[in-house]
């Protein structure tokens, strides 16, 4: 990424939103608490959405079944963390991480593997047909949810935070939950790895080029279908990771949890610009902040605040904040 050429205006929206809201909140500590909570929520939403932005942007696939990988990741985490009670019960954050990290890895592997099958049997027959994609991927999600119920049962399962991640920290007068800081760190790592891969590696170049002109990438001698499959699996794995983070954030999981955040993810992608990782980050942070601010200031408006945000952004930039050239 060339910093001189980088368009900073969309990124500036994040601090701008925080600054605009400050006078309405009044108290500095409350504002700081809400802001950090919003950024943490945004980071988790980014992890979930980042895979879909690649799938949508590169493959032009409207995967409404993305949510099932989120739920799958979260349920896998309940099994892995449940089996590592000694580590999660410890007050040491490092011992907690020895349980959470394997949970993340296993969730990503399972979601990625199921993603491969999902691409092969559900998505591949409907490449190029958006209406069929919507219908069949929604059908895929329903099947996935039912399979989750078969394996883990239909009821809500608690996913308590490991002991060392519970509680709060005081930053001045602001109260910050420890887990939200963990979410910010994980989200930042995912963003850094994705950005590095996309901008510093040949495979990333191919993905970015494929988002713009698939036919030309093939004409250069690359098998874009193989790239599609890989990106779909990575996108599903990231959704699995997002599911672990979201499940721990909610401290419980239900089979429908993926479907519940699907709309939020699509709002993030539309705000960010299809196929743009940086756009997905900005969109997710804006959505996270907006949800927290409106939840505090105008609770009744919280439900549709993100729709309003999306409308405002689209009036400014109809292709999203970081629209890619097609």
């Amino acid at each position, binding site marked *: 990424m*060339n910093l001189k050429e980088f368009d900073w205006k969309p990124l500036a929206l994040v601090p701008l939103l925080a600054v605009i809201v400050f006078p309405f909140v009044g108290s500095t500590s409350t504002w700081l608490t809400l802001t950090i909570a919003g950024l943490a929520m945004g980071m988790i939403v980014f992890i979930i959405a980042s895979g879909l932005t690649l799938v949508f942007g590169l493959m032009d696939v409207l995967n409404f079944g993305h949510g099932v990988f989120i739920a799958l990741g979260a349920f896998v985490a309940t099994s892995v963390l449940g089996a590592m009670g000694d580590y999660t019960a410890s007050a040491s954050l490092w011992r907690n991480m020895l349980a959470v990290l394997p949970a993340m890895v296993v969730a990503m592997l399972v979601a990625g593997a199921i993603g491969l099958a999902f691409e092969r049997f559900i998505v591949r027959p409907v490449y190029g047909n958006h209406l069929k994609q919507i219908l069949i991927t929604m059908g895929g999600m329903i099947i996935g949810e039912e399979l989750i119920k078969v394996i883990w049962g239909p009821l809500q399962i608690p996913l308590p935070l490991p002991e060392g991640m519970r509680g709060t920290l005081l930053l001045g007068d602001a109260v910050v939950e420890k887990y939200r800081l963990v979410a910010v760190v994980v989200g930042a790592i995912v963003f850094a790895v994705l950005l590095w891969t996309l901008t510093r590696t040949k495979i990333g170049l191919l993905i970015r080029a494929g988002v713009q002109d698939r036919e030309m990438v093939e*004409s*250069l001698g690359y098998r874009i279908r193989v790239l599609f499959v890989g990106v779909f699996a990575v996108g599903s794995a990231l959704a699995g990771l997002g599911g672990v983070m979201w499940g721990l954030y909610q401290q419980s999981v239900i089979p429908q949890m993926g479907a519940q955040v699907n709309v939020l993810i699509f709002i993030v992608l539309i705000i960010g610009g299809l196929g743009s990782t940086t756009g997905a980050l900005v969109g997710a942070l804006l959505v996270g902040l907006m949800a927290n601010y409106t939840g505090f200031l105008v609770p009744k408006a919280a439900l549709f605040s993100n729709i309003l945000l999306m409308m405002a952004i689209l009036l400014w930039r109809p292709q999203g904040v970081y629209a890619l050239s097609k």
Partner: protein
Amino acid sequence: MNLLTLQGVHTHIGAYHILHGVDLAVPRGQLTMLLGRNGAGKTTTLRTIMGLWRASAGRIAFGGEDITRDATPQIAGRGIAYVPESMGIFADLTVKENMLLAARGARHARQMDEKRLQWIFSLFPAVEKFWNHPAGKLSGGQKQMLAVARAIVEPRELLIVDEPSKGLAPAIINNMIDAFAQLKASGVTILLVEQNINFARRLGDTVAVMDNGVVVHAGSMQALAENEELQHELLGLAL
């Protein structure tokens, strides 16, 4: 000796029958011009050669091997470079990244063939000048230079270019003609679709003229250039 041959190639796009049995031969080491009025089927012929549209009948052979059923990446992998009419530039990538993508053997810019790069820079100085700039910000002529430069970043046996002079200023067109002349001199076989008659006359060794999805004339460019009656009959104008 022909490097590329098409025999009775038919192409359908949806319900439309576009190519009606194209016969075309591209001699090795020569520059073949593919001429014809708008809608004659020139672009469809190139896209069919590249496998971007599938031939519904007929045979396409490259270097003696049948490539009719090959997928586009396979065809490109055999040594055919393609510059589409739209140029196919990745606008959000830099000039360097566009070139690196085409250099299939290189994972990083420093692994690209430096000697060949310098040769390309001598043909298209704008590519070097705007090396780290986003390709989308180049002018039309610079984008066309990048598109051709990208196609030759690695040695290819056949270069297929669709209307390289389209929309370019006369000075840029002259630069393009010089560049293609040098490419031809380097031994690359070239198949060029062109509407600019001056371009065709100055560069072409052999020529094929298309009309209504078939090749209606094939021969030497010089012979066509010297026969005004034939030019009027085939193209509706004189060269």
